[in-house]
């Protein structure tokens, strides 16, 4: 059965950049955030690769990326992402960072998806189980709620479609284990962990084909206000913990044992 796969994905600053929280007038932000190069949020990226993979296995499927982000930044990021696999774009031009409100973001995404007016019986909504900026882990549930989709899976690592249209979903649970569920049919929301797929290589030819539809959608990005909905007392980087001990003549096995002990503490 062909699927209509919708992937929700925002942007995150390139992880190699120096990320320094600063307190702005309205809400905190990252120092020079707009000037820093961005990437498609890594969790959403996994979801997108899985979506493309599923679409390949089910001819006739389409993949749409729904993204709430500053339009100009999104355009730069698409120069890489659009080369990796074929997809269409629904762009919402609005703020996207670690301090924008998850609830408002989920609402905006849900409304944008609803507006596409797809027949719900073959819709799968993908996204990351959290984002590299906010990490609240709730946006996809809010999107599901908005769309009235009851089957929501979190920290997904695999989807396997069975004959007849049901599918198995593997979700991460504690202790490195997975929980496997069977879902009778679409629609469903899958918020992905890392999945199992490597990042597809760049392929400018795919990019060129994508861009012919993506650029006009980007030009038409809907301006979207996202209220903060909350107040921040302060923002700071997590403290770096560095414990160094210089040892001589200690066997490697002994060092490994000590590190393992320390990790268990």
């Amino acid at each position: 059965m062909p699927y209509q796969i919708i992937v929700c994905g925002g942007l995150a600053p390139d992880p190699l950049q120096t990320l320094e929280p600063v307190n702005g007038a309205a809400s905190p932000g990252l120092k020079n955030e707009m000037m820093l190069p961005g990437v498609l949020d890594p969790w959403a990226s996994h979801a997108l690769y899985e979506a493309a993979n599923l679409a390949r296995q089910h001819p006739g499927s389409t993949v749409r990326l729904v993204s709430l982000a500053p339009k100009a930044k999104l355009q730069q990021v698409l120069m890489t992402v659009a080369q990796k696999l074929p997809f269409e774009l629904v762009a919402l031009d609005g703020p996207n960072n670690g301090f924008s409100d998850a609830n408002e973001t989920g609402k905006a995404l849900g409304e944008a998806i609803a507006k596409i007016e797809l027949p719900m019986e073959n819709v799968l909504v993908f996204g990351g189980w959290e984002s590299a900026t906010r990490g609240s882990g709730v946006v996809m549930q809010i999107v599901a709620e908005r769309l009235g989709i009851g089957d929501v899976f979190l920290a997904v690592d695999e989807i396997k479609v069975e004959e007849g249209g049901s599918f198995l979903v593997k979700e991460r649970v504690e202790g490195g284990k997975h929980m496997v569920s069977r879902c009778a049919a679409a629609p469903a929301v899958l918020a992905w962990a890392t999945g199992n797929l490597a990042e597809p290589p760049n392929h400018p030819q795919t990019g060129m084909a994508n861009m012919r539809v993506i650029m006009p959608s980007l030009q038409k990005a809907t301006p979207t206000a996202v209220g903060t909905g909350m107040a921040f007392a302060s923002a700071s980087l997590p403290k770096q913990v560095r414990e160094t001990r210089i040892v001589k003549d200690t066997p490697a096995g002994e060092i490994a044992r000590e590190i393992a002990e320390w990790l268990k503490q």
Partner: protein
Amino acid sequence: MAATTSPSMPMPTLKTIPGDEIRQLLWRFEDRYDLAMLVQSVRAVARGPVARLVASGGRLSHDWTPEKDALLPEYDAAGITAAYMSPEEGGFIEGPKNFAMALIAFELAWVDAGAATCSLAQHLALSPIHERGTPEQQQRYMSLAAPAPGRKTFRGAFCLTEPIPYVGVETGMLGGKARVAYWPTEEELAAGKEPILEVSKRGRFITNMGFANFVTAAVDTGDERIKSSCMVILEETDEGTYDRGTPTKKLVHQLSSTSDPVFNMKVPASRIIGGYRIEAGKVVPNHDHSSVIEAVFRRTRVGVGLMTSSKLLSAIEPLIRYHRDRFRGSGAVTPGTPRFELGLQQKQDVTHRLLEIWAAGEASASLGFATARLFDELDPLEKTKTAILAAHGIGGGMAEFKALKKRQVEAIEFLDMQDHLESLRPKARYQALAEDTVVQYVILDATANVLCPATKLWNTGYGSHMMREAVSLMGGYGITEDCPGFLSFKWMDTQLEATYEGPEAVQRRQMSVTMTNPVFLAQFRNWIHEMRQVASHDPGTGACTLASAMKLWIWTLDHLQLAKDANGAKLYQSNRQGVTFPMADALCWLLASRAQILDVERLAAEGPNNPALEDGLDGTVQFLRDLCHMQAARAAGEVARICTELVYGYLSHPSWSEPGCGACLSQNDLVSVEALVPGASGFSDETVGEGGVHETKAGPCAVHPGLNDFAKLRAKLEACMTGFQLAKDRAGDSLTKVMIPAALDYPQ
């Protein structure tokens, strides 16, 4: 956005290292998403597999290893190989590809110029076919060379250079020969059978030879039945010897394959690039080898120049990081102290030298990309021009040269009008010339003929000096294999960029001719006004300094073309490289600085349209303007030095024994003069002491009233340097504040 050099105004500083958005605006491709994607795709290969191979010691062997070979499919997959082809041939970029090729070279060389050369050599091999090949040759080789699933990509090498004493700088001295191996009978000829050529050629230092499936080789005629030299295509499966030769023990660009091949093969005459005719029982190639390589090099040399620019710019981030972090981690240096936070950046010399590297990188990149864009403009014009001339029965060679020369008058007329205010231009005439393809071609061609060798010469030559500076700023770390950013490899590599595709002497030689083309000089005069105009609204760019230096240069060129040396020999002539070559060098400084200023002007004008840049645009523009100012002053200094050396250096110094020297006043004469008119003795330069003894020096000081204009221009230029050190201090301040990423993004 206007800047001044007033020291009292608080100026915004650079917040982050300029990213892709800034670069796209500076180099004018913000609307070309095909190119923006190409950049990302090439970058991923450069900073991924290429960087990993360099880091794991892949460069430490002369041989073409399996690891190096494994990079070729990476280039194919990333679109690097196909970028040269048109969509019909299997590529994905429409229109001219010079700028796209320039971006590829830039991105690969950011990590390793050998990788860039490997990709460039493939395009170099195809370039003779692309530029001058017959439609059938273009169809066959461009398509075979475009990667496609299920078949091996056909790869090529370009073989011109030969073992000593044959072709090197002197590209006419070919030892390789084409002879007729079989001449068909009349009937066979009538039935379309072709003459078979025997091609023998030895190559020296030929890139891609370790794996090339075909070679485009330059050979002379070795047979009276072949009219001239030509370039031929040899395939590895052709009959005869296709010996790849021993790998060159090169010390640089180790991720490319270089060897000294030997060919002795039989091929049909249809392998002559551009085709041939049979006239009076002879094979007459449609293009001799010189005209083919001229068309090839004038395009591919730009990419080589940009390799060095890229390396200079790539050195900035690792150097800032090294300097900042230099003392961190020592118990004695605690966070929050200047020594901890700034490290070596506390020392002014460190920041100033880094700024000079940065400014050189910006200027050379601006020059290179401007040249690449110019060729993209020129390519379609060139085709239309050829068609127009052909319609008038003019089919290349001398006839074309003469026809184009005739149009120079109109080209100059157009340029003169362009220099006037729009309201003062004769509209209809101006419009007519603006729409005349041949006239516009003459203008662009004259400019390209200077900009291309200037890019190759200055970017690689001065770039290699600055790359050495970069290495030295990293201390001992700089000359280790572990140096972040592979700076020492990059430094060594620059010497090859300065050498292959024609070493510096070749570029200087070409410029010494093309820069005296009256069309170019008319263009150049307009550029002086252009720089003054920029200066009038943005005084902080150094554009005025540059305009003064341009004026000094053109005055000097005019002077040298007429002047003679002390022995009465003409100064500006082709075999007087001591005069012509330095003038070419001086011009390069001016062109690079101009290109840099124009790019920053564009950023200032267009940047506000991109909301993503809102936060830091002011500081970025200010910083880049300060770099422009530094570079303009440096260029002005070089030009002043070179011009002064040439204008005065060929005159003979007066000596005490010259006849006119009897006119020197004695000490007693001076006392009498002083008694009559107090202060008047000061107007006399030279005196003789008791017993006719002169001052202890070489002779009377040289005075050249005929050169007063030069002296005035030079004095003005020196005063124009006002403020540039302030710009440098300000940029240095930015350097200590700019935020850099937490770690270098390669190897990934």
